[in-house]
C-alpha cells in the first residue's frame, strides 16, 4: 500500500512536467488547429544552446537557464515563421509534416553544437531528498511540481485576466470572428508560439535538470510525452492537459514499478490507444471534439 501511494506521488510529480509539455501542445492546437510536432525538438535545441555555453564557456547556472529559455523562444519563433505562418491555413497536413521535418533540422543543429551523445546538464538546485512519514520525496521532483503549479497559475491569470489572453482565446474560439473584431491573428499566433516555447523551455529545463543529462533523443521523447498527455486529456483543453499529464505520469510510474522498465513506454501507448478508442475526445475534450469534427472531416 505504501508502495502504491509512493508510486502515485512520484508519478504525479513527474507527470507535472508532462502536463507542462501538454499545455504547450494544447495552446498551439487551440490557436492554430494544427499540431506542432517539432515542439520537443525546439526545447531540445534551446537546452543544447544553454549546455553549449556551459560546456565551452563555463558560465554560471543562472545564465545557462536564461539562455535556454531565450533560445527556446527564438527557435520556437523560427518554427512558427517557417512551418506555420508560411503555409496557408487550410494545408493542415503540409504544416504538420513540415513541422516534423524541421525536427530533423533542429536535431542536426543540436548535434553539430555538441557532437558527443550525452552531456551533463547543470541543475539549478542541488539534488537531495527528504522524508515525510513513510514517503520519500526527491527535492528536484518536488520543485518541479511546485514550478508546474506556479506556471499554471501564471498562465491562468495571463489567459483569463489580460487583454492578450482574451485575444488568444478569441482567436482559438473563431479566428475569423476575432479578425473582424480587429485582433491581429498572425501576431497573436506568434506571441502564443513564443509563450508556449518559453513554457516549454521551463519544463524542459526542469526535466533535464532532474535527469542531470541531455541527449539528442530528448526532442522526440518530449514531443511524444506531450502529445500523449494532451490526447489523454483532450485536444485544446487546458485542464485536460494537466489531468492528462498527471494520469500519464501515474500510469508510467506504476508500470515501471510493477512490470519493469521495458513496459513503461508500452503502457503509455496502450493507455493512449485505449483512450482514443473508448473516449476519442480524451478526458475533457468531448465538447471540443464535436466542434472539431467539421474542421477535420477532410485532411
Amino acid at each position, binding site marked *: 500500500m505504501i508502495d502504491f501511494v509512493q508510486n502515485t506521488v512520484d508519478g504525479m510529480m513527474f507527470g507535472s512536467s508532462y502536463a507542462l509539455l501538454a499545455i504547450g501542445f494544447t495552446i498551439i492546437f487551440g490557436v492554430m488547429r494544427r499540431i506542432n510536432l517539432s515542439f520537443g525538438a525546439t526545447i531540445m535545441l534551446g537546452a543544447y544552446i544553454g549546455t553549449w555555453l556551459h560546456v565551452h564557456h563555463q558560465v554560471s547556472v543562472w545564465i545557462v537557464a536564461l539562455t535556454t529559455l531565450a533560445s527556446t523562444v527564438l527557435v520556437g519563433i523560427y518554427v512558427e515563421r517557417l512551418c506555420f505562418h508560411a503555409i496557408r491555413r487550410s494545408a493542415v497536413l503540409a504544416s504538420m509534416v513540415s513541422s516534423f521535418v524541421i*525536427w*530533423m533540422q533542429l536535431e542536426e543543429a543540436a548535434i553539430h553544437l555538441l557532437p558527443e551523445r550525452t552531456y551533463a546538464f547543470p541543475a539549478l538546485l542541488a539534488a537531495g531528498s527528504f522524508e515525510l512519514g513513510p514517503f520519500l520525496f526527491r527535492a528536484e521532483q518536488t520543485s518541479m511540481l511546485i514550478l508546474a503549479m506556479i506556471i499554471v497559475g501564471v498562465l491562468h491569470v495571463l489567459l483569463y485576466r489580460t487583454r492578450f489572453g482574451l485575444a488568444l482565446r478569441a482567436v482559438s474560439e473563431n479566428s475569423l470572428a476575432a479578425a473582424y473584431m480587429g485582433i491581429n491573428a498572425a501576431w497573436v499566433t506568434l506571441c502564443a508560439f513564443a509563450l508556449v516555447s518559453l513554457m516549454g523551455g521551463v519544463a524542459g529545463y526542469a526535466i533535464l535538470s532532474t535527469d542531470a543529462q541531455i541527449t539528442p533523443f530528448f526532442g522526440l521523447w518530449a514531443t511524444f510525452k506531450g502529445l500523449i498527455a494532451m490526447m489523454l486529456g483532450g*485536444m485544446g483543453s487546458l485542464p485536460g492537459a494537466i489531468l492528462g499529464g498527471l494520469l500519464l505520469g501515474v500510469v508510467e510510474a506504476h508500470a515501471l514499478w510493477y512490470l519493469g522498465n521495458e513496459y513503461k513506454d*508500452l503502457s503509455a501507448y496502450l493507455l493512449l490507444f485505449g483512450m482514443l478508442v473508448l473516449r*476519442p475526445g480524451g478526458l475533457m475534450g468531448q465538447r471540443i471534439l464535436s466542434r472539431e469534427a467539421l474542421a*477535420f*472531416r477532410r*485532411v
Partner: protein
Amino acid sequence: MSYYLGLAQLIGIHTLLGLSAYVLMLTGQLSLGQAGFFAIGAYSAGILTVIFELPILPALLAAAVIAAFFAFLVGFPALRVKGLMLVVATIAFGEFVRLFFFNLSWRVPRGDIVVGPDSTNGFREIRYFVANGWSPWEITAFVWTFVILIMAALWWMDRSRAGAVLRAVGEDELATQSVGVNLTAVKVTAMTAGGFIAGIGGALYAHTATYVDHLTFTVLLATFAVSYPILGGLSSVFGTLVAVVFIQGVLVEGLRFMGDWRNIVFGLLIIMAMNLKPSGLFDARTAQVLKRAVGLGAQEKSDA
C-alpha cells in the same frame, strides 16, 4: 553499378511504403502507423525465411497477409477517430510495434550459428538472397516486379468503382454515406490494403538490407511514408513515385556531398516544396501539362 541498383531497390521499397499511405489518404485518412505495418512485414518475412526456412515468395506473401491482418485489427478501433486524432492514434500504434520488436528475442540454432531477432541487437541473419546466389540485378527486378504489380493494381482500381468509392469517402463522408456506402467497411478495407502493401515493402526491405532493427521503424519512416503522397499529390499513383524519386533519389543522394549538414538543407527543401505546391508536386495541372507535352490528351477538355 551496384550502388545504383541499391538505390533503385530503395526507391522501389519506399514507393511501396508511400503507396500504402496513399491508399488510405484517398479516403481522407492520414496514418503515421505505416512504419508499424512495414516493421511487421519485415520481421515476419525475416522470421519465415530464416527460422522456418521458407522460400522467399511464400514468406513475402505470408508477411503481407500478417501485416494486412494487423491493419485490419487496428483499423476498426482506430478509424473511429479522424484527422489529427487518427494521426496520434497511429503514431501510438507504430511506436507500440517498434517497442514490441525492441523487446522481441527469438533465437534458434540453425547449423553452426544462432539466428533470429535479438531484441536491441536487431535481426541480423536475413541472408536469403545471398544464400541463394541472387545477383543485384535479379534482386532489383524482383523488387520492381512487386512495385509495378501494385502500382498497376492501384491504377486500375482508380479507374474502377472501388476507386470512385474511396475518393468519394475522402471528398465528403456524409454525402457518400447518404448514397448507401458503408464508411467503416471502406475505411477498414483501405487500411487493410495499406497494411498489405506496407507488409510487402517491409518484407522486401528486410531481405535487401539483410539486417533490421527497431530503430529502422521509427516515426521518421512513417513521416516519410505520408510525405510521399502529400508531396506527390493524390491525383495518381505516379505522384507518389515522383515524390520518392525526388526525395530518395535527388534530395537524400544528391545532398550526400554536404555531409553532416545534409539534414538541415533537406528539411528546408521539403518545407519549400510544400510551401510552393501545397497540393503536391504532381498535381492535376502538372499532369495536364505533361500530357500535353507528350501529345496525349491535347484535345481533351480539362476537368480539373
